[in-house]
């Protein structure tokens, strides 16, 4: 079969649009816009970046022919298309949020790196070959390290980037080691071939070692306990738009990739979801990560006073729930997980957007810095209420259906007595605990009176549009959950 370069090029249209967009942003900033003010340059860069993302969306929408691309290097299935669109929408919202951030040095570079990260993330969504998986992951990760450390005026930001980079680097090493073992065992780097080999060979101790390596790496990437240590510092130190991207689009693409790798690729080595005594597999290890993330995330979040650290621990807890969705994806399909991850992303981008907006008028570190938000900006307070209540899983917001569908799928694996089912019950119980810390945030924003020196907050139109769109999508997908869940 001759290589189908036309098909490959068509499938990579979105990435091409993003990279060209990044180059255009950089080029124009260096030439035409050079003499404009910083704020003006940020505005222009964001507009061009948004155009590039929209162009990428069009490419995904019109997309290549469904099915494997270029001999199976990429796959364009509904999950890949949906994840790419999800990633692009979340990136677009992040760009809108970035409009409200105070203009730093090199605004164009910031936007260009965000676009490169988005290109890595969309590639992750479709990758079906271990080399591409690794390349996509590294492209995304390296870009994210850069934007995490972009605020050079604050040591926190540098600390965040360094921690993120070191942890991420180690995770990448684990992943590569795991991949090489998988290649050694199966003799292939293509997921369908790997799956075939594993189902022929059966469980193999070396394969188990490889699986552990891969799980450790993804544990790092998705900030699941006990590999979560970088998350609170990155969420706290990184500029708000960067944290938003790390917490939303990168999570969504990561979970899609993880599901693809574990089920179509390594599904034969999963073990029995109804009972862990039936044989080895990766399900028990994922179950342990789920339990640790749910417990640690929810319980430690109770003690947080910093809003960003609180969101980080809540993210760890949500990672646990999403991993539960990964466990259930073998039977229930990726729909519940995708729904959960994408709507979680919307709420997180929004929450960081609100933090970013509050930072325009002063500090936004401790939860009490949100005090009296309802007076300072009713719009922001209303949006924040939607995001936080969605994170807490209150109907009719999308977060509720995310939890509901994932937990239902997990319980259906083998009833409540089976491991996944009992984890779902644990998650439901902990969601009652989580309500406490979410309400603490809303108490400050909606109940408390503003501090004496607090001024009202002006939100730039692009940012307001972004926040409104995020809140609107959360309500929309909550009222009509079938629109996302019916995609697969």
């Amino acid at each position, binding site marked *: 079969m001759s290589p189908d370069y036309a098909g490959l090029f068509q499938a990579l249209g979105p990435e091409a649009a993003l990279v060209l967009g990044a180059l255009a942003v950089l080029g124009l900033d260096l030439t035409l816009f050079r003499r404009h003010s910083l704020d003006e340059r940020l505005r222009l860069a964001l507009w061009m970046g948004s155009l590039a993302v929209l162009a990428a969306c069009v490419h995904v929408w019109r997309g290549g022919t469904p099915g494997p691309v270029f001999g199976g290097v990429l796959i364009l299935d509904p999950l890949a298309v949906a994840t790419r669109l999800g990633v692009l929408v979340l990136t677009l919202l992040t760009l809108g949020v970035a409009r409200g951030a105070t203009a730093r040095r090199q605004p164009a570079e910031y936007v260009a790196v965000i676009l490169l990260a988005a290109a890595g993330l969309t590639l992750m969504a479709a990758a079906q070959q271990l080399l591409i998986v690794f390349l996509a992951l590294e492209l995304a990760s390296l870009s994210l390290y850069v934007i995490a450390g972009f605020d050079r005026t604050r040591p926190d930001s540098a600390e965040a980037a360094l921690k993120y980079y070191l942890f991420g680097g180690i995770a990448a090493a684990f992943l590569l080691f795991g991949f090489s073992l998988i290649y050694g065992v199966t003799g292939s780097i293509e997921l369908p071939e790997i799956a075939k080999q594993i189902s022929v060979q059966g469980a193999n101790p070396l394969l188990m070692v490889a699986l552990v390596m891969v799980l450790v790496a993804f544990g790092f990437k998705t900030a699941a306990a006990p590999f979560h240590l970088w998350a609170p510092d990155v969420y706290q130190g990184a500029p708000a738009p960067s944290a938003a991207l790390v917490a939303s689009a990168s999570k969504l693409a990561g979970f899609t990739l993880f599901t693809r790798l574990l089920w179509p690729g390594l599904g034969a080595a999963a073990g029995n979801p109804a009972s862990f005594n039936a044989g080895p597999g990766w399900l028990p290890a994922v179950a342990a990560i789920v339990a640790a993330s749910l417990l640690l995330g929810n319980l430690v979040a109770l003690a947080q006073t910093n809003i960003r650290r609180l969101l980080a621990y809540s993210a760890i807890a949500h990672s646990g729930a999403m991993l539960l969705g990964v466990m259930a994806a073998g039977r229930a399909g990726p729909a519940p997980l995708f729904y959960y991850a994408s709507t979680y992303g919307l709420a997180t981008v929004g929450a960081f957007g609100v933090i970013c907006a509050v930072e325009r008028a002063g500090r936004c570190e401790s939860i009490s810095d949100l005090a009296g938000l309802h007076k300072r900006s009713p719009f922001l307070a209303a949006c924040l209420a939607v995001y936080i209540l969605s994170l807490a899983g209150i109907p009719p917001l999308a977060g509720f259906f995310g939890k509901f569908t994932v937990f239902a799928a997990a319980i259906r694996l083998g009833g409540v007595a089976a491991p996944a089912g009992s984890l779902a019950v644990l998650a439901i119980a902990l969601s009652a605990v989580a309500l406490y810390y979410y309400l603490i945030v809303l108490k400050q924003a*909606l109940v408390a009176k503003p501090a004496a020196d607090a001024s009202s907050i002006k939100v730039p139109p692009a940012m307001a549009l972004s926040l409104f769109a995020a809140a609107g999508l959360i309500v929309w997908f909550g009222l009509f959950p079938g629109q996302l869940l019916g995609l697969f």
Partner: protein
Amino acid sequence: MSLLPWSIYVSLAGALLALAAGRHSARAARWVALLAASGAWALTLLAATRFVPGPGLQTLVDHAWLPSMGVHYHLAADGISLTLLVLTGLASTAGVLFSWNITERAGEFFALFLTLVAGVYGVFLSADALLFFAFYEIAIVPKYFLIAIWGSTNREYGAMKLALYSFAGSAMVLAGLLWVYAAGGGHGFAFGDLAQAAATLPRHQQIVVFAFVFFGFATLAGLFPLHTWAPTGHVAAPTAASMLLAGVVMKLGAYGCLRIALPLSPVGFAYWQTPIAWLAVIGIVYAGLVALMQTDLKFVIGYSSVSHMGFVMLGIAAANLQSVGGAVLQMFSHGVIAGLLFAVVGRMVYDRTHTRQLAELRAMPLHRLMPFAAAVFVIAGIASMGLPGFSGFPAELTILVGAWKTNPAWAAVGAVGVLVAAAFTLRAIQVSFFGSVDKPQPAGQVTHLEPITLAEKAGAILLISATVLIGLKPDILLNWINPALQSPLFQTVLRGGPS
């Protein structure tokens, strides 16, 4: 009947409009709220006139909501839901009238108030357990903000405790529902489907599932010993929120027990019936005794609510046609009477005297300063004690007679609760309003209080008329309720009896 779903939509639209109107003025917001609340109530009354009682839920709307999981947007009503819908309309309209003095963030207040009301209407109309659950949570969240923002004594504590208890209860319900749903192969959440699915579970699992769902709902109904959120929540809440909380929100829990938990697993219910009944009667007597000891007038009413809700739970636990019919009647009756009591204590007395301490109220000649409030409180107290002529009488009597048929001991202890209720109610009336009748007025005393407003009078008269009407003609409601209990779902758990 097809008008009933509009009660939800009218309330929600009212919430949005009130929010918008509140940016203009508090006055506009409260008129919007009054129109929305009374409009929704009018819809329920209009539907009631066209209602043909019968067994089983009469479907109003049925759309597939989440087809892949078998969730339907299925609204339906029977005599039980209709009774509670009318109560919701009444309580919310009166609640707006008793919130006429809210000026701080009035738009947001009425928006949250009406959202809560919409959630309550939704719960009473749901014929799909997941939809029921969604509306149930919509009703829980606004309560937190209503109490935390506009509340009084220890409001942040009371609000958080209430929210966490409610949410923990609903988490138990969700776990139980998903358990049964998965056992049924994921077909759907229609009440009948769930009951069929639960029947396939082994007995010990049915017992646990039933406990999850029943006690999850019973938390919100204030079943002893899960009731501790109720007094602190009621006391901290602003008047209208206490009225809704005691008047209708606690009924959500009891309604969930009756509509979802009971038919879900007759096997599980058989196991738990005796413990539940004893918890209910202990709650009746215990909460009554605690009410007798309170020094804060609103705590007296708060505990009395727990005590009266104990009757509802006893009626449900006794599980015969008569006792359950009485329980639904008691839900209506208590909703009206508790609303009235909270209105007098929270709005008429506390907003004017700024105290609820019995010792301080005793020193004020309230019967002279506020004769209208005194009269209303006496009427509400008499109704609350269950004297003939008021709705509490037929309700509690039916429950006790019904309970006697299942187990005389429950009825006997429950009857002690009626005596305790008389004791704490009389004490509250005597001390708060007539404490200084035979004493000379000390110097430097309050001699003038702001007069009772028209809105308050209107609200009080509405509620009093309702309790008298049902007290004199309980058949109006019983003729709706009793046929509904003949539905096949209830037949599996309820023992027959003349009704």
